[in-house]
């Protein structure tokens, strides 16, 4: 408890590579949830022990594949109802995961626990520069309320410049 400021948590955690379960890296973090205004994202400071794997090769393969598509990529329901993701959609799925992490961080409080449930729809947006742009409609699952929350997010990505969420907005649930 930090008077007049908020609640600070000190965490020691282990990060596990989703694509390689044996590859782990230790991490320490400090998270500060602000008192009062729930519209401010929690402050996060972290240090990673060691290095994360280099993914240049896979990144470039994906980048070139999308760049060389004749028509803009469009897809829906990733994963499908049975939990399957086709190999070509796997990077699109992973990208959504990372981007949704940002959205979740920006909207988390001490009383929420969000997970990405599904990509409802994704559409590639043509750009004249070197970036890839995707317009996602995702479904977030919030554990405490059990709600499924549709969320729109615009995601920019480049192999050397990383991920950026340039726009995101919570969507109304259908009746």
């Amino acid at each position: 408890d930090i008077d007049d400021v908020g609640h600070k948590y000190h965490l020691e955690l282990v990060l596990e590579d989703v694509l390689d379960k044996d590859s782990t890296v230790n991490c320490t973090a400090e998270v500060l949830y602000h008192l009062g205004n729930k519209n401010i994202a929690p402050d996060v400071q972290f240090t990673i022990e060691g290095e994360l794997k280099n993914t240049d090769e896979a990144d470039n393969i994906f980048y070139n594949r999308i760049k060389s598509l004749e028509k803009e990529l469009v897809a829906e329901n990733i994963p499908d109802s049975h939990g399957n993701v086709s190999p070509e959609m796997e990077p699109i799925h992973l990208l959504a995961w990372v981007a949704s992490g940002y959205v979740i961080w920006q909207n988390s409080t001490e009383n929420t626990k969000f997970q990405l449930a599904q990509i409802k729809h994704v559409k590639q947006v043509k750009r004249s520069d070197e970036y890839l742009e995707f317009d996602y409609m995702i479904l977030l699952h919030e554990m405490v309320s059990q709600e499924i929350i549709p969320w729109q997010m615009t995601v920019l990505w480049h192999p050397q410049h990383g991920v950026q969420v340039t726009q995101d907005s919570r969507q109304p649930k259908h009746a």
Partner: protein
Amino acid sequence: DQVLHIVPETFQQVQHLQHLCSTLPLDLWKPLLPEDIWAGEDLHIRVPAPLVEEVKDSLDQHMISYKVLIPDVQELVDQSMPKERSSQRQVPEGYVYTQYHPMEEIYQWMTQIQKSNSELVTQHYLGKTIENRTMYCLRISQPSDKTKKIIWMDCGIHAREWISPAFCQWFVKEILQNHKSDPKISRFLQNLDLYVLPVLNIDGYIYSWEKDRLWRKNRSPHMNGTCYGTDLNRNFDSSWGSIGVSYNCSSEIFCRSGPESEPETRAVAQFIKRKKSDILCYLTIHSYGQYILTPYGSTTKPPSNIEELMHVAEIAAAALMGKYGTSYEVGPTALILYSNSGSSRDWAHTIGIPFSYTFELRDKGTHGFVLPPDQIQPTCEETM
């Protein structure tokens, strides 16, 4: 996946091909082993789809020419085994427990299971859902002259948690297939009767197959059909409506107008109440999160037998972890997950059933409710 046909011309090419086989997960169709690759001899190799480009690049780089023998292996497989949705699939001998099944198939499966195991299995009527579908549970009981204690297990109280009904079906199959050969199971059945309800929220489950994969509640209409669904796990008579609920129909945790307002809740509650003096253990299976939850959700005050409840749950979690290393958290719901009232687990305990647990199966959020079918087997095996 593609199958490539290569005829290596030189020893260097053979070596390179052997190197590829040992470093990448390639499937040699001909010859059987990398050491049998010879220059001048046919080589047939299946390359998994994500590696096709990489392998072809590597062959090009080493000037190894190849022909694509089979451009799409899956297509060939599908052609040779037409997918039939006829009665063939529902026969338990051919029933695929590592796939998710729609309700129609589960109904047929229950009938078949009862027919092919009639000495042990009986099907019991519980009631009807709000959309007028019939609710059945299976009773597995070895004939005996003594009255046996009962273990009750229900699955699928929340529509989107597909791994849950999949587990109930797996469980029944395992018990019936191994009751003679497995001494543990056979001793189990000598002393206990098992009641299994494969899908409690039938209407919701069907809705999640046909309309909305992430639906949770049942399908009871509210406010003249402008809003649907009560959370059945907030509808039981245990501190109903007090905490962790919503009185708003559009919420996923809508508890409705009063305890047991829903026909599905009533059907289960009535059945259990009638047998409660013989019920030793109540299990309700959910996903996701990897928890074994004890009462209560509605208060942090512990139940009278909390030590025993925790002890048994911890042994279970340890056994579960022993199989594939999957870790489950154990404890009272209100302490380790969130507060909720009207849950079936709390209710079972308050009416006198000593052991009452909620299992939240795999995973921890990576796939969440949409767990891929290749995880059905490991999840069920470890939970077993």
